[in-house]
């Protein structure tokens, strides 16, 4: 079917402004992705899936400038022993990065891999993204597959001794970064991936994750602070039998962030937890869009999203649990809550269920409201000043999401950081 005229024009313009990397084992996948983009067109405001978030600046030919945020604060996760991989404005920085060798895992740069004729990544690159295009189209992810310039491919074969930290630095006020990572977790293997930093003025990132039977992956993201970047990220996770995937994302400011998580259970008895905490202040638009497909028996999924908003910030949550026919004994849980600290902020939510199996338990809840006055009064009556009391109540509100982090040290560090940020803005 032909695209609407405006969509056709904007899509063509954007496609004309980028070049598809040629040669090597990934070219067929890139070409297929390009034709997906041409078929779907890039998102616009009229698309139901973009009802609450304006994609204009994410698809425009020119990048809206974003000032580089200067801070003396130590970057997230720097207190932990980790293997750090640094990207500056979306380009791998070998000097700033650690040596990529670590027992139990093989790490390669996407740019190095794509030149090869044969590589395991060929069977995954763009494959999970393509699967994630139905029933809902995600054109920005297909765009990424076609035009990604850099990224890492990680093959987890054992249990590496330390987490792998992808750090995204922002140096140029009009940089446009397109990163594509592929992570393959072997049967019985387990790893932790950390991500932090604003990345670029505009950031499009796709992470494809394939977890084999009994594999485990932890993904922890801390999306910068006070920066002006605009980002659209996608993660596509494919889960085998008895595997586990746990993800937590912390977002503190950023003009526009759209995080899509697409999780698919194809093996029985697996579990996936997707959680997020966000604190938005002022010119801030944060969108969590989650789609979980249960296509296996006895799997457990949990979505926990908490948003604290003030000074005109907007929080969006679009979550969906799809239970396919035969996916019996599914346990699906979804909660999205917002705490609106003032009258200018808004919370827009669409928590959906689509169920085709009768022996399942799926529940979803969504609430929105102001801070609990009774709780505030209690704290104040015990001598806690109003600002600190508000922060404590806010932290308590976010706790359910932060508690989704298994590693207690990382959870504590995230909490400290949150408290520091809240206190600084008091």
């Amino acid at each position: 079917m032909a695209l609407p005229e405006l969509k056709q024009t904007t899509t063509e313009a954007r496609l004309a402004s980028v070049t598809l990397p040629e040669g090597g084992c990934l070219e067929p996948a890139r070409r297929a992705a390009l034709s997906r983009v041409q078929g779907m067109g890039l998102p616009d405001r009229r698309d139901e899936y973009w009802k609450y978030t304006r994609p204009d600046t994410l698809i425009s030919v020119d990048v809206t400038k974003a000032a580089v945020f200067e801070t003396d604060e130590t970057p997230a996760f720097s207190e932990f022993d980790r293997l750090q991989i640094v990207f500056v404005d979306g380009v791998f920085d070998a000097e700033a990065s650690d040596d990529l060798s670590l027992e139990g895992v093989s790490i390669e740069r996407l740019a190095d891999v794509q030149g090869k004729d044969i590589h395991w990544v060929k069977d995954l690159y763009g494959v999970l993204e393509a699967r994630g295009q139905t029933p809902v189209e995600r054109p920005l992810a297909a765009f990424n597959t076609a035009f990604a310039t850099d990224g890492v491919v990680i093959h987890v074969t054992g249990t590496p001794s330390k987490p792998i930290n992808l750090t995204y630095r922002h140096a140029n006020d009009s940089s446009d970064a397109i990163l594509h990572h592929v992570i393959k977790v072997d049967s019985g293997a387990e790893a932790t991936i950390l991500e932090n930093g604003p990345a670029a003025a505009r950031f499009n990132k796709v992470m494809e994750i394939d977890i084999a039977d009994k594999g485990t992956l932890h993904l922890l993201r801390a999306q910068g602070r006070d920066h002006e970047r605009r980002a659209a990220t996608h993660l596509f996770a494919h889960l085998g039998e008895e595997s586990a995937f746990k993800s937590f994302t912390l977002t503190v400011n950023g003009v526009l962030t759209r995080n899509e998580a697409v999780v698919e259970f194809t093996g029985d008895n697996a579990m996936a937890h997707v959680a997020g905490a966000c604190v938005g202040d002022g010119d801030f638009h944060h969108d969590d869009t989650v789609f979980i497909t249960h296509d296996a028996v006895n799997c457990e999924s949990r979505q926990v999203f908490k948003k604290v908003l003030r000074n005109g910030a907007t929080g969006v949550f679009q979550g969906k649990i799809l239970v396919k026919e035969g996916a019996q004994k599914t346990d699906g849980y979804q909660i999205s809550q917002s705490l609106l600290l003032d009258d200018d902020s808004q919370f827009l939510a669409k928590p959906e269920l689509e169920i085709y199996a009768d022996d399942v338990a799926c529940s979803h809840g969504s609430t929105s409201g102001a801070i609990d006055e009774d709780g505030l009064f209690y704290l104040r009556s015990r001598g806690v000043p109003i600002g600190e009391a508000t922060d404590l109540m806010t932290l308590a509100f976010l706790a359910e999401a932060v508690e989704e982090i298994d590693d207690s040290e990382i959870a504590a560090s995230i909490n400290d950081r949150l408290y520091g940020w809240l206190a600084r803005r008091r």
Partner: protein
Amino acid sequence: MAALDQFEAKEGVDQETVDAVRDVSTYKYGWNTDIEMEYAPKGVNPDIVRLISSKNEEPEWMTEWRLQAFERWTGMKEPNWAMVNYPEIDFQDQYYYARPKSMEVKPKSLDEVDPKLLDTYAKLGIPLKEQMILAGVEGAEEAQTEERKVAVDAVFDSVSVGTTFQAELKKAGVIFCSISEAIREHPELVKKYLGTVVPASDNFYATLNSAVFSDGSFVYVPPGVRCPMELSTYFRINAENTGQFERTLIIADKGSYVSYLEGCTAPQRDTAQLHAAVVEIIIEEDAEVKYSTVQNWYPGDENGKGGIYNFVTKRADCRGDRAKVMWTQVETGSAVTWKYPSCILRGNESQGEFYSIAIANNMQQADTGTKMIHLGKNTKSRIVSKGISAGKAQNTYRGLVSMHPKAKNSRNYTQCDSLLIGDKCGAHTVPYIEVKNNSSRVEHEATTSKVDDDQLFYCRQRGMDEEEAVALVVNGFCKDVLQALPMEFAMEAQQLVAISLEGSVG
């Protein structure tokens, strides 16, 4: 045979519930009345619109209004966002107007109405004689010192057959008549309110309705009047290949109150039939309207053959402060349902409530829910929706709760539960929540057989075993909704009361 027999409900689903669903899914109103009919030519075009208008002896402004709507409709596309699938409708292969020949000359009173028509309604339990009362309320009059009266407007295909108790209502100042009569007799009221809640260009089906609606009911309750009896409209589709497009307009002026009931059935036929209605309700300051529906259109057979496509736009506008509206619906019929009775809470402290039970069996598809648009301060809304799917049916709750920036201190509570009987059906929830101020509270939940721990604890403390306590607390899947139904629907309510929430999926 109901498809339910072929499916095993999973453990935990109450057998009584399965039986009750099977029972309500057995269609009892599938017979047809053999009566001579008069049709307008098939299809829809400006001439048909003019013809319908002239059959209703409408003034020029009304014809013009219809034609404008038709003009708009030709440029509109059928919505496709609902989770329903049906073969493409050929809008030119339908009759848009059908009336019994005997209605050619309007009967002056019910005594002159063709006995065949009166029998039809009597058979449906809707006697059109004032000395009789609606079926299903036997015993009701004993409870009351006075006889319980219900005024009925009976719509047969495209025309209103008659309206009972008009004289008695008139004494109280209440106008209750068919909309075609209102256009002739009370043009000032119709002109003032028609299309102000559901604009002629609102959506594809509402616009089509605006162009071709043939009849429907009109209610005006003057300031300070509590309508002395329940008002009701009974819609019957009888003719084949004929769409029914009725329009209802209810105006509750300041401080008034009215309870309105709506029932509908259709004969069993192999081809699908279209029903696209519009209901507009205007509620002024301190007024209250209760609108209850038992939708029982023919659902089609177990293979999905035939049935009514029910595409309905219903909306209430709480214009004045402290205005209140309550929608209660029991949806058991129709092959496809597309229906979202909504509340615009414009007046400060106005309230909207929506209670719904949707039961879908065999190949039925229901996409239904509500919109609560909070515009005024201190407005409140409550949504309770229960969906049950059996056979190969699909049941979707779709709703919107919107808190406008100015709707300070407003409150919404939404609860939707679904139950699946068998593993070939589906239950879906698509809520939209938009909160644009922080003094309002919005809560949405859709949960599994969630039993309140405190209540359970209370019961157990008093010596009940766990099972008994659960049975008592979760005593009825549908009770929340059934309590909101007026007495007149007692029969339907009795059938549904056996349905429990146990084993719901979310």
